[in-house]
């Protein structure tokens, strides 16, 4: 059994509006037999944190196109995207780009 995983989540660029305007969330994911990955984290976020309009945050298995994801300050495309396995104290940032400039 893997230990629970504590992660720091940040929502920006307007995405925070889907989470009651709260930008920073410190969450602890419950322990489970397999390691937590980004795909499962998205499901967890949808179930436990997302306050409204899920279609603005997720699309199918992944985030809605136009939402950037950074894992420990690096583009998640470099980290394996949905397959990245979360480590304790990881910092995940979701930035929406879908607004006026």
């Amino acid at each position: 059994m893997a230990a629970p995983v504590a992660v720091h989540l940040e929502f920006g660029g307007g995405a925070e509006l889907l989470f009651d305007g709260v930008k920073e969330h410190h969450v602890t994911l419950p322990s489970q037999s397999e390691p937590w990955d980004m795909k499962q984290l998205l499901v967890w976020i949808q179930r436990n944190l997302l306050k409204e309009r899920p279609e603005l945050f997720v699309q199918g298995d992944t985030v809605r196109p136009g939402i950037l994801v950074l894992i420990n300050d690096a583009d998640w495309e470099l980290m394996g995207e949905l397959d990245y396995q979360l480590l304790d104290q990881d910092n995940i940032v979701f930035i929406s780009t879908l607004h006026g400039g």
Partner: protein
Amino acid sequence: MPVLCSSCSEKRAVLKRPKTGHSLCKACFFWAFEEEVHRTIVAAKLFRPGETVGIAASGGKDSTVLAHVMKLLNERHGYGLELMLISVDEGITGYRDDSLETVKRNQQQYELPLKIVSYEELYGWTMDAIVKQVGLKNNCTFCGVFRRQALDRGAIMLKVDKICTGHNADDVAETVLMNILRGDIARLRRCTAISTASEGDGVVPRCKPLKYAYEKEIVLYAYFKKLDYFSTECIYSPNAYRGYARTFLKDLESIRPSSIMDIIHSGENLSVREGVKMPVQGTCSRCGYISSQALCKSCVLLEGLNRGLPKLGIGKHHRLHEKILSQQPLTEQEERKLKSVDF
């Protein structure tokens, strides 16, 4: 296992560039992003030394990055430009008043003069009032048309030689798609131009230094540099047609990131068949602004608002413009057509 920067091979890569597929560290990314804008500016000969340039600033991500990079490149490469910020207050409560606070902070952070022009003072109408009359479907048409003229007015008040806007690659690609979807051949031909020429009184030439910069990179540049910007969707925009093009483009980008540059490339290299009827550029009979019709769009929209005929500027009612210009009364049927509004 961290990926190393493909440029310096020393530091950890922080992003994968959609344009090139290269993985870059923060410092190399900043350098690549800034120098690409510099190359865009030089290749298109956007500015001349000694010019005064108005940066159209809304407090949003694109214009904040534009202001930051313009100031940086002006110093780094000695463009010799005098930079200023121009901001437009459309009168949208809860959206524009907040983003204007951001522009005021930008003014202090970048130490640039700032001029704010408002729809209220220019036209006597705020967007809030316009939406009450027009509804939520075609309001973006009013805002876009009014804003274009408002920027020109602000630029003239500030006596700038040129305006630059923060339009990015995604914006230009979306516009190409929109013009194809709407069959607007005239706009399709013009919309990828990086700068407009100076044509007529009251029109200041404008350009798009960020034309080839991906929105993703603009956001990451702002994030890593910790630039202060305002990020909320305009409350009146959910039904804008552009939204469909944007969603489509984002889906395309996720499958094939170069799509955005490729669409711009397609737009830039389109030629129009001989014999296709194109609008001829003239001036508005009422205000003298650039126009392809007897009355410019701004005058038509304003007339519609002031007369309680919100649909006057929406749809093709060109034949009625003559009637309006000569102050002839409209028939009851004509009035009814122009009054109906979708909410």
